[in-house]
C-alpha cells in the first residue's frame, strides 16, 4: 500500500513539474473567449438583476467572451475539469488540492497579474492553492459559516456554539431541543471538532480537519448528543430558510447568504461568530492545465481582482472579498460595514474547509480520512 501511495505521490509531483515548466511567461493576444466553471451566482452579467454585472465591461475591454458553466457541487467541478474543455474554475477548498494533485490545473505566473499585490496578504500563500511555493490560481471569495439566530429568542447574540451542541434553556426559557439545526454534510464533524478545541483542550486538537482516532471519536460523541436536539438537518439553503420561518428553528450554523436574504425579508434574523470561532470556505480561480484560452484566462483573473467584481459579488453573495481594498475604495457597492458583517474582521477565527486525509501533520496515516467521516456521519444522523 505504501508503495502505491509513494507512486501516486510521485506521479502527482511529476505532473506538477511538467505543468510548472509550462507556466506562462508573457501574455499573447486575447483568444476571443474564456470558458469558466463556477458556482451559481458567482459570475453575473446583469441578467438576474441589472445592478449586478461584472462581465459585460470585461468583454468589451478585452474582447474575450465569457462562457459560464455552473456546477452545484465540488465533485461536479472536479468532474468537469477532468473532462476538459474549460479554462478556469472557481474551486473551493475541498476541490482545489484534488485538482492540483490530479494535475488538472497549472501554476499561475503572478507577475502577469498586476493586481496580485492587492490580494489580502493572509490569502496570498493559503495552503489550499499554494503547493511547494507555486500559486495554483488567484483567491476569489471567502466567507465564514456563521451562527444564525432568531433575534426574538436571543435579544443578545449567543456567545457560544453550545446552543446547537448541548441541551440547554435558551433565553426565552424553553429548551433548545427541536429548535436548532446542523448541516447534514460530513464536513460538519469539523464544526464539532472546533467546538472541542475550545472546550476540551486536553484532546489536543490543532486543526478541525486533522483528527486522530481519539479526537475523532470525541467529535462524533458530541454530534450524537446533537442528534437529540436536531429535528431535521439542513442541506439546501432555501429549505433552511423555510425551517426558520415555519418550523420553529431559532439557531443553526449557516451562511451569510441565508442571513442576508432572511433579514431582507424582514425576518427577526441575525448572525454571529461565537467565541470558539467558525469554519469557513475560500474559493480560488484556478486555470486548467490545457486551457485553450490562456491569455483571456489571465485577463479574467486580473479582472476578478481589479474591477467592481470583488465589491459587488460580496454584496450579491454575502461573501468577503479577497481584495480588502474592494470594501473601502468605492469600486462597487460594498463598504467596510458590509464586509465586516460578512466576516472580514473574523478572519483569524476561521478554519477554512479542506478535505481530511489520512496523512496529516500528525503523521503518516495518523488522521481519519474523509470517506470515514461520510459513513460515520450517516450513522450519527441515523442515531448510532
Amino acid at each position, binding site marked *: 500500500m505504501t508503495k502505491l501511495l509513494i507512486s501516486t505521490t510521485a506521479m502527482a509531483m511529476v505532473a506538477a513539474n511538467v505543468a510548472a515548466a509550462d507556466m506562462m511567461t508573457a501574455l499573447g493576444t486575447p483568444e476571443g473567449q474564456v470558458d469558466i466553471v463556477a458556482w451559481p451566482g458567482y459570475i453575473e452579467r446583469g441578467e438576474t438583476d441589472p445592478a449586478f454585472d461584472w462581465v459585460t465591461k470585461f468583454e468589451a475591454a478585452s474582447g474575450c467572451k465569457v462562457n459560464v458553466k455552473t456546477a452545484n457541487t*465540488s465533485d461536479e467541478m472536479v468532474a468537469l475539469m477532468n473532462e476538459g474543455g474549460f479554462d478556469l474554475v472557481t474551486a473551493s477548498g475541498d476541490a482545489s488540492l484534488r485538482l492540483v494533485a490530479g494535475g488538472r490545473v497549472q501554476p499561475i505566473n503572478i507577475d502577469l497579474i498586476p493586481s496580485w499585490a492587492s490580494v489580502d496578504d493572509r490569502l496570498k500563500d493559503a495552503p489550499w492553492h499554494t503547493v511547494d511555493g507555486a500559486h495554483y490560481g488567484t483567491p476569489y471569495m471567502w466567507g465564514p459559516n456563521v451562527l444564525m439566530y432568531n433575534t426574538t429568542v436571543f435579544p443578545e447574540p449567543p456567545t457560544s456554539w453550545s446552543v446547537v451542541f448541548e441541551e440547554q434553556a435558551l433565553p426565552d426559557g424553553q429548551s433548545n431541543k427541536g429548535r436548532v439545526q446542523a448541516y447534514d454534510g460530513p464536513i460538519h464533524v469539523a464544526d464539532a471538532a472546533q467546538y472541542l478545541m475550545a472546550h476540551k483542550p486536553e484532546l489536543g486538537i490543532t486543526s478541525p480537519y486533522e483528527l486522530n482516532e481519539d479526537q475523532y471519536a470525541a467529535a462524533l460523541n458530541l454530534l450524537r448528543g446533537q442528534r437529540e436536539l436536531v429535528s*431535521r438537518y439542513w442541506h439546501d439553503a432555501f429549505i433552511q430558510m423555510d425551517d426558520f420561518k415555519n*418550523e420553529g428553528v431559532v439557531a443553526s450554523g449557516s451562511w451569510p447568504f441565508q442571513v442576508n436574504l432572511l433579514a431582507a425579508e424582514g425576518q427577526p434574523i441575525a448572525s454571529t461568530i461565537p467565541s470558539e470561532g467558525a469554519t469557513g470556505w475560500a474559493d480560488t480561480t484556478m486555470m486548467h492545465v490545457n486551457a485553450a484560452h490562456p491569455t483571456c484566462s489571465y485577463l479574467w483573473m486580473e479582472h476578478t481582482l481589479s474591477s467592481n467584481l470583488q465589491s459587488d459579488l460580496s454584496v450579491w453573495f454575502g461573501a468577503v472579498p479577497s481584495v480588502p481594498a474592494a470594501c473601502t475604495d468605492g469600486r462597487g457597492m460594498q463598504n467596510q460595514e458590509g464586509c465586516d458583517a460578512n466576516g472580514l474582521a473574523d478572519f483569524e477565527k476561521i478554519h477554512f474547509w479542506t478535505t481530511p*486525509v489520512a496523512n496529516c501533520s500528525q503523521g503518516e496515516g495518523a488522521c481519519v*480520512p474523509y*470517506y470515514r467521516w461520510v459513513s*460515520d456521519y450517516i450513522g450519527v444522523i441515523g442515531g448510532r
Partner: protein
Amino acid sequence: MESAHPARGAFDRMTALFWRRPKLLTALLIAPPLLWLGVVYVGSLAALLLQSFYSIDEFSGIVVPEFTLKTYAELLIPSNYDVIVRTVTMAAAVTLASVAIAFPVAFFAARHAKGRWKAVFYLGVMLPLWSSYLVKVYAWKLILAKEGIITWAAEGIGAGNVLGAVLAIPVIGGNSLSTSYIGTFLVFVYVWLPYMILPMQASLERVPTSMLEASADLGARGWRTFRSVILPLALPGVIAGSIFTFSLTLGDYIIPQIIGSSRFFIGQAVYSLQGTAGNIPLAAAFAVVPIVIMLVYLAVARKMGAFDAL
C-alpha cells in the same frame, strides 16, 4: 451482346440478400435496440456490480481493485444495516398503504364510473403527475410544517392534543409532521399513489361481469365474491402497482432529504458515498441492495401467479 436484365445496383443486391437470408434483416433491425439494452443498461449494471466487489483501503481511502466481499460485509455494520432496514420498511409501508387507498378508488373507477365521470377520474389521477415532483414535495413541506396548515387546522378544531399524541409516538413521531417519519410516509404515498391506481384499475376492468353474476348465483355474498373472485383476478394489477410503489420508494433520495428526520435512506447513502468521499465500492454495494430485493420480490410475485395472466 447485351444482358437480358439491366445491371443490378447496390440496393437491388442488398434487397436480394435480405430476401435470401431473412434472418440477416431481422438481426440488423434488432441490433441497435439490443446494443442500447446490452451496453447502456446491462453494461452499466455490470460495471456497478464489479465495483461493489472492490474495497477501499482503510488508511489511504484509495479503491483497491481486487475482488473481495469485504464491502458487502460493511453493509451489515449497524449504521449501514439501519439504512437498509429503514428504507425497506418504508417501502413496504408505503406499498401497503397505497394498496389500501388505491383499491376502492380503482374499483369505483373501473366498475361504477361511467362516461364523463370516468374522464374526471382519469384527469384526477393523472393531474398530479403532470406537475413537477419537486414542486409537490416542497408544497407538502409547507403543509406539514410546525406552523403549517395541518397544525393550524388541528388546533382550530381542538384536535391539537391528538396531533401532539401522534407526534409523541416514539421512532415515527417527531417535533412536527414535516420532521417525522409520518411526514415522509404521507408524502411518499401521495407521490406514488397514481402508479398504484392505474394498473389496478386496468386489471379490475378486465374482471368479467359474468363471473361476478355467477358468484352471486352460487350464493356468495359481497365479501366472499371479493375474496374468491375479484381479488385473485385483479392480483396481477395489484402486484404491478406494488412493483412501482415499492421500487420507487426504495430508490428515492429527494423526499427523505426534504421531509423527515434526516435519517438516511439507501439513495441518499449512495449519493453521499460517491464523489468527495470516493467510497465507490460501498456506494455500489448499497445500490445492489434494491436490485436484489426487487429480484426476490419478483420471484415471490411469480410464485403467487401474478404474471400468469401476462
